[in-house]
């Protein structure tokens, strides 16, 4: 953990025009995330967590405030400059997986490298390695339609990892998965933080998913309501290994939010 935060946003605000009314989706947010942290961002719908995620991912620009990513001010960059930042520094994992249909897992994973101008042979090598990391090397030739939801999300994680970005942003990554598969995916993310020191910001509205992170940021009405470390994160691998009934029982009796 270095002294300078990897993600550093100061007084970030975002306004939308909804008809004649101005909606303050974000109303002055300060957040600093250091390298190697696993941050869960929770909150009700409309709390501003998705807007925050879009700004963190350089998909959107804040109306006010500054955003420094890896020491670089990316607040007001052009669309193309932000595309480069996304390609170099950020990996995305989405709720709907967002893989290209009718395209093999390997080709999906290669895609970010295409926009980086990497040669075909090098792309193939790196993409295979990333698929190995998520345990799907033998499914390289399958298209998304031939894969289960959990497998698709692991391909998406491989695609996010293939450029070896410092930051991985996950927007409701388990929203479309059943409980067991959710824990498998989370186990994979926890393992990545441990092994490769990647920094993860994860948006969720499920308390037991947030419990796997090392820090929980709670949003409400466009502000950060609570920001607290999670001293004993849940080990998702252990949960995933439990028999089905036991998982449900443990969840019911587990620590509340």
């Amino acid at each position, binding site marked *: 953990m270095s002294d300078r935060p990897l993600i550093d946003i100061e007084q970030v605000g975002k306004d939308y025009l909804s008809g004649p009314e101005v909606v303050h989706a974000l109303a002055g947010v300060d957040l600093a995330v250091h390298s190697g942290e696993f941050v869960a961002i929770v909150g009700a719908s409309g709390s501003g967590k998705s807007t925050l995620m879009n700004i963190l991912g350089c998909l959107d620009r804040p109306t006010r405030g500054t955003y420094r990513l890896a020491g670089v001010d990316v607040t007001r960059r052009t669309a193309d400059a932000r595309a480069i930042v996304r390609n170099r520094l950020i990996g*995305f994992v989405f709720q709907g997986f967002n893989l290209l249909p009718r395209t093999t897992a390997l080709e999906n994973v290669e895609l970010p490298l295409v926009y980086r101008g990497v040669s075909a042979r090098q792309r193939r090598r790196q993409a295979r390695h990333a698929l190995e990391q998520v345990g799907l090397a033998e499914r390289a030739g399958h298209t998304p339609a031939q894969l289960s939801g959990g497998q698709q999300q692991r391909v998406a994680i491989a695609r996010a990892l293939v450029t070896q970005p410092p930051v991985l942003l996950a927007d409701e990554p388990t929203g479309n998965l059943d409980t067991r598969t959710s824990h498998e995916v989370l186990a994979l993310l926890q393992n990545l933080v441990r092994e490769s020191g990647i920094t993860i910001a994860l948006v969720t509205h499920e308390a037991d998913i947030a419990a796997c992170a090392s820090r929980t940021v709670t949003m409400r009405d466009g502000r950060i309501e609570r920001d607290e470390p999670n001293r004993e994160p849940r080990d998702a691998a252990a949960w995933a290994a439990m028999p089905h009934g036991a998982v449900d029982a443990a969840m019911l009796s587990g620590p509340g939010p």
Partner: protein
Amino acid sequence: MNRLWSSLRLAFSALMRRKARASLTALGILIGIAAVVVVTALGTGARERIGSQIESLGSNLLFVFSQPVAKSGARGRPGAEMALTDRDAAAIHRDASAVSAVTVYSEVKAQVVSEYDNAKIGVMGVDKYYYPVRGFSVDDGRMWTDSEEQTKAKVCLIGQTAIDKLFGNVDPVGRYLRIGRHPFRVIGTLKAKGQSPFEDQDDRILMPIGSWRARVSPTLGDRVMLIMASAKTAARTGQAKRQIEGIVRQRHHIAEGDEDDFKVRTQEQFKKSHDAVFNILTALLVSVAGIALFVGGVGVMNIMLVSVTERTREIGIRMAIGAKRHDIQLQFLVESIALTLFGGLAGIALAVGLIVLIHRTVGWTMRLSPEAVIVALVTSVLVGLVFGFLPARRAARLDPIDALRHE
């Protein structure tokens, strides 16, 4: 280069996913390009054919023909429209320094009878200069002699088409044919010359002008239909024309400012006026074919817009993982160009097939120039570029967040 290659592969696989749609869209371009190529080939072929026919008339030719002056509504007596005479031709030969040879020519379509068959054939009275001026030569037999010309002997030479009509496969030399009341002896045959813009140059019988006046068309006196002159060189054609005009005006007593009763045209003028006609015709047909191509292009634009809308989510994903605007724009542009180029190639193939087919069945001369093929290919690429630009730009300007949310 690497990026362009992967764009091409990407475009190809995107098109292959929707084969039926891509083929139907390309069909519009195919028809447009094929129409342009076929029409151009027709125009070029026709122009070349007319050009070579005019060449085949002879070299550096000038044509002098009568042009009756309409002084009143009344028409003169028959033959009055023939204002030119033998003596005009002789004067041109004597006085025009830029002219190397002069010949006269009169023709009637007459019923000609041989021992085998009969047919209506152009019978021409000419002098011996007609041969070098018009580029005719004797194939078999012989030319008439000076004494035969002076004595208005009943001899003639016969062209290849006329031989077919009257004698079939029989050698005509030494045989007789009858025109009106008079029998004529065939003393020779003419070398084949082919089509001119006006007529089949081999469907003719030539005889001395004296014999023609005496026996075929005795009412005309020394008047001739046409005087043909050969300029000494191509460069002196203009000079020859002015000299001829001067001589004939003087001989016909035409005052300064009065209208000529004759006209001089050069071979070059014939060629130019024919070229002009064909250029206009070709331009007209090409613009009609161009409309077909334009409609095809609009079809491409339409399909590309549909494709961009359908793949909005894909565009969002690509943008999220680092595609810049021009990456997206290039992807869709390459796709539309691949579509039109495919249509263009197929269109050229269809055009080649049609050209061969038309040539074999209808017998039109068509010329497919390499330039036309290159222009067709460049055009199909341009159509893809122009009509793909708007959809590609629309794709590139999508907001990544909206695109990702698109269902």
